[in-house]
């Protein structure tokens, strides 16, 4: 997951977007604005509300995941970015260009150079070879044959399909076909990548391989990716930020941790309760601030500082560097022993109180945390002390999840992560 500090510049903005399907959307919009729900509008005038008052801003270089169940409007949503579907109302900006104002030729040009798209069922052309499929975007742009073939071959190598260039799509497996789809999208060098349930039609194992590949590629390419999925695990895994859609309404958007720890409503909570938190959360999001920092130079001074705090342990910091864990017991022992004069000798063995990384997943640190009597120190990549993680702490985070799961059972039907109905092929 990329850090957000240097990627906070908004690239895409969506303002007050509405989509109503039916023969007379203007009429239905009156009802929508009057505050009627999706089912009420459907009952009153037979129009389906696809999207309702969507406001989003997507930053340059981030993976923005839009997630929801079938019928939540997520596939409709993604088709608005390149106007495969025209909104009933609302504005879409990409780098301050109002996409809604583009005429036919400008829109074609925008689609050729600004955005590319990966489809759930791949959308490959069965009558073209793999390399011709990858080069399709360039062909449409009018790039000459030798140049586009060369570039397509490079991208095929990048996604790991060298040697398949003269095959036809039907000769490849699903995962390979989607790699072709990905290479085709990357081949145009478009800045924005739209991925419509790109991995949903693949087997779980292949899917996670593709997710890894996407994360790897993103670290090199820094594209702005809009990713649609119905699978929260996938959203948490690859998303820098996640927006959750329900019945065409945006119910929550935020970072994966925000969604997991503070679900906005029952709907989101229903999703979240099935997630394995230990695998989804990092230490950073659940740690507490360190209870006691010892900044002394001598044993006596350290003991003094320790007595002032409520705890019988502390984290030794010298010269702004984290040194290790000391306990009251180890300090007193060192104090009694005349041969020991250096404070550093009171520091516990690394094996007894290992420092854990902020970035680590909770799952990875469960054994250490449980084996240690004292809360473990949490350090960041530079070795600075950031917080502490105790057994109780851990139990609380994992148990909260369990309790929430039991409490909600039977209250509301569990959202089933079902597949989008397959498009007619």
């Amino acid at each position, binding site marked *: 997951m990329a850090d957000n500090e240097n990627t906070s510049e908004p690239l895409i903005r969506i303002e007050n977007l509405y989509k109503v399907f039916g023969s007379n959307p203007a009429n239905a919009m009156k009802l929508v604005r009057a505050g009627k729900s999706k089912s009420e509008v459907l009952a009153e005038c037979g129009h389906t509300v696809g999207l309702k008052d969507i406001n989003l801003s997507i930053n340059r270089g981030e993976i923005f995941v839009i997630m929801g169940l079938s019928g939540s409007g997520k596939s409709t949503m993604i088709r608005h970015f390149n106007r495969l579907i025209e909104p009933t109302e609302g504005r879409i900006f990409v780098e301050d260009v109002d996409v809604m104002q583009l005429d036919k030729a400008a829109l074609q040009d925008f689609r050729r150079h600004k955005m590319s798209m990966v*489809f759930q069922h791949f959308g490959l*052309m*069965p009558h073209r070879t793999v390399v011709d499929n990858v080069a399709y975007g360039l062909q449409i742009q009018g790039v000459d044959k030798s140049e586009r073939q060369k570039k397509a071959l490079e991208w095929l190598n990048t996604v790991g399909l060298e040697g398949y260039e003269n095959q036809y799509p039907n000769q490849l497996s699903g995962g390979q076909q989607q790699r072709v789809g990905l290479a085709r999208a990357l081949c145009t060098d478009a800045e924005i990548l739209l991925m419509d349930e790109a991995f949903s039609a693949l087997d779980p194992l292949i899917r996670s391989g593709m997710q890894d590949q996407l994360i790897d590629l993103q670290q090199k390419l820094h594209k702005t990716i809009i990713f649609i999925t119905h699978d929260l695990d996938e959203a948490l895994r690859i998303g820098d930020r996640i927006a959750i859609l329900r019945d065409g309404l945006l119910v929550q958007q935020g970072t994966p941790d925000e969604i997991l720890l503070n679900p906005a409503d029952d709907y989101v909570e229903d999703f979240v309760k099935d997630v394995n938190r230990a695998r989804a959360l990092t230490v950073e999001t659940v740690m507490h601030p360190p209870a006691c920092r010892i900044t002394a130079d001598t044993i006596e001074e350290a003991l003094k500082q320790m007595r002032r705090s409520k705890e019988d342990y502390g984290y030794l910091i010298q010269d702004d560097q984290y040194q290790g864990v000391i306990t009251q017991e180890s300090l007193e022992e060192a104090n009694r022993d005349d041969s020991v004069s250096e404070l550093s000798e009171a520091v516990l063995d690394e094996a007894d109180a290992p420092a854990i990384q902020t970035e680590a997943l909770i799952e990875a640190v469960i054994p250490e945390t449980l084996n240690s009597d004292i809360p473990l120190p949490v350090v960041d990549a530079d070795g600075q002390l950031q917080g502490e993680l105790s057994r109780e702490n851990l139990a609380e985070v994992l148990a909260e999840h369990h309790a929430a799961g039991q409490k909600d059972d039977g209250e509301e039907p569990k959202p089933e992560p079902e597949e989008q109905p397959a498009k007619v092929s």
Partner: protein
Amino acid sequence: MSDKSWLTEIPQLDRSELRDIRKYLDGAYRDFSREYGDLIESFFDPLLSFLIWFEKLLLGTPWWLVIVVIAFLSYMAGRSWKLAAGVVVSFLLIGYFGMWDNTMRTLSIITVCTLLAIGIGIPIGIAMARSDRVQSIVTPTLDIMQTMPAFVYLIPVVMLLGIGKIPGVIAVIIYAIPPVIRLTNLGIRLVNKEVLEAATAYGASSSQRLFGVQLPLAMPTIMAGVNQTIMMALAMVVIASMIGVKGLGQPVLQSITNQYFTLGLLNGLAIVALAIIFDRVSQSYAKRTQAHLGGRDNG
């Protein structure tokens, strides 16, 4: 009590009124054909001279050269020696039983009709696929063309253009064109939505979509339509012979009126042989060129 109640007899026009309507319509059409018949006929002159030229070409070429050319074409289409050998044997038999000239005449008119039907039908099918309104107009028209007995639309054509090759071609095309139109429309409409969406998403213009995606993917269906069109054109040969189109149809017509069973059978078999040749050649061509759509790589 009236002996004609609307309960027992369906209300109907007076005989005299009906006769007036008929007279009026017939008169109007006759006036129209007298007025514009020559003009319309001259419009078809280029086609007529092409038809005559093509027929003369086939009749004037030595028989062995015709067989060699046709065998070569069918080999190129299907890349199968068996098919080419079958074609050679059929034509030798046709010649042996004295039907060579009539077969050449039929072959020439069917070839021209088929090419015209494809040339007119595919664009109409494309227009139909692009617009629901065009589809809603063309579909009932095609229904009429396919169900109206051929003799009925032969009447105005003959009134307008007399008897001969051109009315024959028109009659054959009216009868044979619906399949290619319908299946072009169907084929394009059945193209995978996501593939088409992908083309749009990458900025393809509508002609890039049509020639790069829709037509290639619809090709198997369109070829099935072409095949049907050829078969139906051959089926019209006998009816066309009633309005003066020379060829295998005329001996058949002669056999019906004179009860010559063997003559009819032989000429009928020649028509069947032509049909099978056209069918096999066009189908094996389609199969060969679309092999990878089914997942095998022959190229």
